[in-house]
């Protein structure tokens, strides 16, 4: 069972829920930019949410070469007869297309997702292209209910990062600015525009810190002062200071926001620490 990609624009890759556990080798967790939407597409296709699906940042058309059941992140299920075409029109939002049975690509280092920096996983380790033929797998059906899509409000919660105090005004300088999603965005990170953050005099006269461990959702601030929010394929270490980290609950909502969308960062209440036994 196969499908043919008849036209594509932007960045389309095969993704799943990632390959955790390998960050010590410099391999990021990877997986879908918005796992909730990927899971919705899979469940709409009656797949287990861990199946590989197509992540679309742009547009895509495909033609069924046999009978297919598609699921999309809006929760719709579509039956395609052989020769029938499905079109996902150009969109500023990230979308997912799943196929009943899952996109059949090999499991590489524990995941099926494409890791572009290492040219591994997914469809031969590369973005999908017009003319590619994708095999459909035989994953067993799943009838779990659709998970909710991430919220679409602009308010997103952050916790102070390890270097928050090294910025003029600290975390408040970040939460005061009305940010927008910048044009520089890929699976490694998304730039925020709309203001500039400044290091304190003391921090800016010190030698740059050595590399530190990074995490998805960290807001790294390069010398330009415009933060970069680290995405699923982020380098595992980085040398720029981290002013804040998005709370995990808001990661999907953040990466689902289209270019130019407004982002209002607000400080989250810190989680209650576990009581010491």
């Amino acid at each position, binding site marked *: 069972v196969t499908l043919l990609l008849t036209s594509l624009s932007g960045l389309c890759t095969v993704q799943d829920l990632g390959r*955790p556990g390998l960050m010590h080798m410099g391999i990021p967790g990877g997986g879908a930019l918005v796992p909730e939407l990927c899971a919705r597409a899979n469940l709409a296709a009656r797949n287990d949410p861990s199946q590989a699906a197509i992540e679309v940042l742009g547009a895509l058309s495909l033609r069924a070469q046999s009978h297919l059941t598609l699921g999309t992140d809006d929760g719709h299920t579509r039956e395609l007869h052989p020769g029938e075409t499905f079109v996902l029109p150009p969109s500023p939002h990230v979308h997912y297309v799943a196929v009943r049975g899952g996109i059949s690509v090999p499991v590489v280092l524990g995941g099926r997702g494409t890791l572009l920096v290492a040219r591994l996983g997914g469809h031969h380790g590369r973005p999908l292209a017009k003319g590619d033929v994708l095999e459909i797998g035989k994953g067993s059906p799943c009838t779990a209910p659709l998970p909710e899509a991430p919220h679409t409000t602009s308010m997103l919660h952050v916790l102070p990062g390890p270097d928050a105090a090294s910025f003029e005004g600290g975390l408040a300088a970040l939460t005061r600015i009305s940010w927008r999603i910048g044009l520089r965005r890929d699976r490694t990170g998304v730039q925020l525009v709309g203001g500039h953050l400044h290091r304190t005099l003391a921090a800016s006269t010190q030698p740059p810190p050595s590399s530190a461990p990074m995490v998805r959702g960290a807001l790294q601030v390069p010398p330009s002062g415009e933060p970069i929010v680290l995405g699923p394929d982020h380098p595992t270490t980085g040398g720029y200071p981290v002013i804040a980290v998005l709370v995990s609950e808001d990661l999907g909502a953040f990466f689902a926001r289209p270019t130019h969308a407004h982002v209002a960062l607000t400080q989250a209440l810190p989680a209650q620490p576990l009581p010491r036994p």
Partner: protein
Amino acid sequence: VSRFAPLGDRAFVAALPEETNARTVYRHLRQVPGVVDVVITESRAAVYGNLDPMLAEAALERAIAEGPKADQDATLHVIRVQYDGEDLPDVARMCGLSQSEVIALHSGRTYSVRMLGFQPGFAYLGPLAPALVAPRRATPRVRVSALSIGMAAHYTGIYPFESSGGWHLIGHAVDFTPFNVLHGATFLLGDHVQFQVAS
């Protein structure tokens, strides 16, 4: 006071005391219940997952108590190098050395894997001979080919994949696979690496 501070709500990061064996720290932190990932850099260690930071704390204390002694299971990798990098003349000029002196210094010592990061399988090898320490290039290259050997500050390393890069390129590794899809990175934290001039 805990050494570990939150890095978001799914990770904790701690400053590492000097003279800590990174591989020992890795081994202990990996065993903490709930830990999914561990990343160690020269000065910090992070644990990822849904975990109790007090348990990570205790594991880190155990690693520190073991001291800086090297693990016995570190692998020695001998890498053949063609010293034909386009920045070799620049490096020699910056360091006030001849090109053959740069090559002799670079290939004349055993490095250890100080950390991994930047790219899958990219190992920061160090320390570089003090005479070779030079800052990164002012303008990073947009394209550095895979297997290029670069150096900057106290480090040298092999680019596993074609990418952008700001290190001075002094050569390329011969017959070497820095990363494979079965096992991941070839160089692991604490491994030893020697460079040998390829004839």
